[in-house]
């Protein structure tokens, strides 16, 4: 016997939480336990909504870490792949999420800690090359301006990750890490081969391997000396 509050799809859709949850899911947001009533609504209506969203060509996924998201499996609902900056920042944040030191502040970290972690993992040059390839292709670049550019890209990535429900942006430049960050660790969660796990995730429509994003046109002469 079902313990759900909702007996029919009509009841589930008539609930006051449905419009907000539906819009958030369709915009790619990950809804977790931190979202309180939205999460509780999804747990309650899960069985009905799974079938409902399947008709739109997407899966309502629930992960054991305690969050939901919508995964498009066809072309009926738009989808996008995360940018290189979002992927790198997301993985570094997932590492911070796993770090016991983060526990001391209840899952809150400062942006400086994220930048330090990224820099330690990849080194400044690799960071610039990955986050700002047009500048790196120029060869020699101004280190100060490149660092500024990296910080800007990281800030932009953080804003987008917050919109997607991976983190919460706190006041005074802090970040609260959410369990959805564990999606970035999905390829290495099992004990098996990473490439095998990636293949499985590609088949499931969770990830893609090609970078389909367009490099934004921007002024790469910004670090040149201004003309007198």
């Amino acid at each position: 016997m079902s313990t759900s509050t909702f007996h029919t799809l009509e009841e589930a859709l008539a609930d006051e939480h449905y419009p907000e949850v539906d819009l958030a899911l369709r915009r790619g947001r990950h809804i977790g336990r931190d979202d309180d009533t939205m999460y509780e609504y999804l747990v309650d209506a899960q069985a009905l909504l799974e079938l409902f969203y399947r008709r739109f060509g997407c899966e309502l996924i629930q992960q054991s870490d305690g969050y939901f998201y919508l995964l498009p499996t066809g072309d009926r609902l738009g989808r996008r792949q995360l940018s290189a900056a979002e992927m790198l920042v997301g993985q570094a944040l997932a590492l911070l999420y796993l770090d016991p030191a983060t526990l001391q502040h209840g899952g809150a970290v400062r942006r400086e800690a994220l930048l330090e972690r990224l820099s330690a993992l990849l080194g400044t040059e690799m960071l610039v090359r990955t986050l700002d390839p047009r500048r790196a292709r120029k060869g020699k670049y101004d280190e100060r301006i490149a660092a500024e550019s990296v910080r800007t890209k990281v800030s932009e990535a953080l804003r987008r990750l917050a919109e997607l429900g991976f983190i919460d942006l706190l006041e005074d430049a802090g970040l609260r890490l959410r369990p959805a960050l564990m999606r970035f660790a999905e390829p290495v969660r099992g004990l098996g081969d990473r490439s095998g796990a990636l293949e499985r995730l590609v088949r499931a429509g969770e990830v893609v391997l090609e970078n389909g994003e367009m490099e934004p046109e921007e002024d790469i002469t910004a670090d040149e000396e201004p003309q007198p």
Partner: protein
Amino acid sequence: MNSVSPNSDTTLKPDDPSRVVASLARDQVTLDLKTIDLCFLAALYLKADKAALASFEEDVLIDMFEQVCDSIEPGAENPRKRATHAIQRLREQRMLARVDAAGIVRAGDYALTTLAAAIVQYFLTDEALTRESLTLLTGTLSAQLAEVLGAAKRATDAESWHAKVSGPLRVTVSELVSGIERRQRGLDAQQEEVQAEIAKILQSDWFSAVDRCQTLLETTATTLNELNEILLRDTHHFLALLQDIQSLAEAAENYETEVTVQRVIEHVDRIAAWGSARQQAWSDYYQYVHRYLRDVVRLDPDRALSQRLRDQTAAWPSSPFFLLVAHAPSIRLLRALETRGERPPVARPRTQREADPEWVEPEDVHADIEALVTQAIDEGAATLAGVSSRVLPKLPEALHYAGAGRVAYAVGRLARIRSEHERPWAPVLARLEVEDWTIVGKDSP
């Protein structure tokens, strides 16, 4: 660095915070205590406490400093000189006060000030709120308040209100409430230590630390729950007693007591708010750590995930992958269709730019001058100055200067003239002079 000025007024009443702040800023009050200074103060405080000393002779101070110096910086050079400097520093900052009036007659006696005692007490006190201490404090506070209420009921004049109600409220009750608050701060510090401890033991022992973490979490949560229950129950009782006292003071029109009671009520409110705020904060932390233990530590007992994720991130630029997320655009609301009329070109009304011709009097000054010159010669003017004096007044004043030249030209053309080698200057009207000629006859036309 500036220190407390001996003349500065740092004992302002705390009634006006902005005045206190402005006064502290004006006097540029600062405190600069080195570790050895703090150790020295602590040693003095403990010695005074143990031996019930009210003050120290100067030699005792120096001996004490040398002992402190020996224990924390063994082998330090010239401890006696350093002691002199330290005592001077502490006196300048109002930590030590000379309490004898002997001046330079003999070495002085020194006592720790309340500022020094408060600083040392802060470092010495490690009391945290416990169920026992809170129950004891709230019980005493309750008894005190009941006693004050009884005194308020019996008070008949301002003197008895002051001595039996307002005074005990300000001193005894406020001390007890401050005692609870101080222990609350102690418990806050203890909680921070527990959080740091949990992070530390997980860092070092990972999976085998799970049980210890849970015990720490449970213990703190239980303590907070118990304390909050006591606070909720007892603060309600305190507030009821305080409001009774306030009503009596209001009826007796004793403003001093009303204000004092109001301050104690605000203090008690703060204590009650602390309990629920800390319980909520701990509850959030408790849930977060529990989820971490369940989802991260228990699922990854060997702590291999962090390392694998680190490797994945470091290698990501060379073997990238990209997560996919839903991305439905926002619903577009199309604008209602509306018919637009042909807009006329931008124009402005035509204006008459050409004025109609007007009839004006004809002007021919040159012809007039020739006629006037002829007339003047005919009338007998014998010099250029004479002709000019007759002609120029008939012309507008603005033309007098130019007219003088025209007159000379006309005279030269219409008459025979003779000029001396050195022509004399002759006045014409008030402001002109001309080099004069003599007219000897008129040319025939």
